[in-house]
């Protein structure tokens, strides 16, 4: 009976505990995952982001299909390559309020120009 109790505790700890820790850790605020895909398949996801003035916003960029690029209008920052199967991280800080457009810098498809989002 004692060994049965130990077995049940082990099950709860490993089978329930481990995934629960992952879920809790995942739900804590962190980087935003920004996916790029050709405009016909939805473009940027999420396409609209919000952040306070002077607060950093951490982005993890990846592509769901072909090579894309990430750049922000009214910014001197160099474009970032967004590759399929790879995560590229960047942190942005905006010191003036406003609506900033981000867009794809790679000729990713026939509707490439529609691949835009806003912060």
């Amino acid at each position: 009976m004692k060994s049965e109790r130990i077995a049940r505790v082990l099950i709860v700890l490993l089978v329930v505990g481990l995934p629960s820790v992952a879920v809790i850790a995942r739900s804590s605020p962190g980087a935003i995952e920004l996916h790029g895909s050709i405009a016909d398949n939805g473009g940027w996801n999420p396409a609209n982001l919000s952040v306070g003035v002077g607060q950093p916003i951490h982005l993890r960029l990846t592509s769901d299909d072909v090579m894309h690029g990430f750049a922000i209008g009214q910014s001197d920052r160099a474009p970032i390559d967004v590759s399929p199967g790879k995560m590229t991280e960047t942190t942005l800080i905006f010191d003036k309020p406003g609506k900033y457009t981000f867009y794809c810098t790679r000729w990713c498809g026939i509707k490439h120009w529609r691949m835009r989002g806003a912060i």
Partner: protein
Amino acid sequence: VGGAIVTPIDLARAPIVKAVLRNRWPQFGLRVLALAGFVFAIIAGLIGTPVGSHNFAIVFVWIAWWAVLMLLAVPILGRGWCSICPIPLPGEWLQNGVALGPIKKGFGLNRRWPNKLRNIWLQNIAFTLVALFSLVVLTTPSVTSIVLLALLFMAIGASLIFERRSFCRYLCPVGGFIGLYSQLAPIELRVKDMAVCAAHTQKSCYIGSADGYGCPWNVYPAALTKNINCGLCLECLRTCPEDNIVINLRSFGADLGQTRGRKLDEAFKAFIMLGSAVIYSAVMLGPWGALKSAAYSIGTLNWLIYAFGFVTLIFGVLPGLFLGAVALGNKMTQAATSLKKTFVVYAYSLVPLGMMAWIAFSISFVFTNISYAWSTASDPLGAGWNLLGTAQTAWTPYSTQSIPLLQAIALLLGLGWSSVTARRIANETQSGRSAMLQALPVVGYCCVITIGLLGLLIG
């Protein structure tokens, strides 16, 4: 290779080994760890990054686990994976009422599995269904989670309705091919002395006792002649009061020499597996973008054409050509055996080539992609974590120059092994030139498949 050449050696002869195997804790510990990994994979697929190469569900299920399964566990241990598989665990605990024996009052209805379904046809269908959707399953974490959840719920459902591990024996799509290829493994669980079993009236290995459960795979150990239906759960080792169970180290492929118990459902499993290895090699490793797109575009007309081609190849073309080959052998030797029986019996000679084809196929993508495991171990959800300090490890394909050589060796070994097996099967009913003529078309069939696979994998 290919027959009972070596006298079996009982691995459990050493008291320490037997004590470890009889003790429930080592196996229980491994199974609980596997279940934790399984549940974590489901969670990772659902809440982790959709980028497959950065998600635990894809990297640790379809690359790391698959590598261990196909390159080590199945060829060496046969059903060794089934021994610690987590999928039947929750259902079995509900069925038995305990996590760690002996059985108490559980929740199951304990119905008998229907007689008409006491074969592996459902497993054949289940594997084919998963295979048809495999390109999406293998690359999309959320879909992998759905498949794993479906397997888990099917196993729980089967445990609550039917007796013992009916899911493992008759439904599991993975268990079906592990069973087929376990015939080749150099490990077997058997009884030491049949007379002892015959004299033992209680049959505690089948019924169960205070020391353990009656065979969860619904097998009477004294009747075991092949590995196919033995899940290596080790319960009979625990329940046998006569110490009459042995775990033998034997020659590779010893089961293929068993003349009894050759069945059509198992024969078709050989074609399903061989055909799937051919199709996967073409779709996943071949240069045909249109084929890849068709396999990925589920529900479209192109996918329907792909699915039709897949099913036609494994259930029609491959068995049809093989039927022609064995008919030719029958005609050349004027054998009196029925064509159906010849077809079933000789299909077992395809088992070695099938396993080697899967090994050759697995070598390429496992060696190419296993480096994703280092970064994913640190960041299993693709959430930007770096738990082990390896999150930034770059993708590095390993041994790229050796892969074609290893694949060629595997395939040629499979061809040789299958050819020897075909000849041995022919020797069961014929001798000399007649046996050679009977086996020749089957060997030719294996040569064509091998050349095709060499072309697809190595180019």
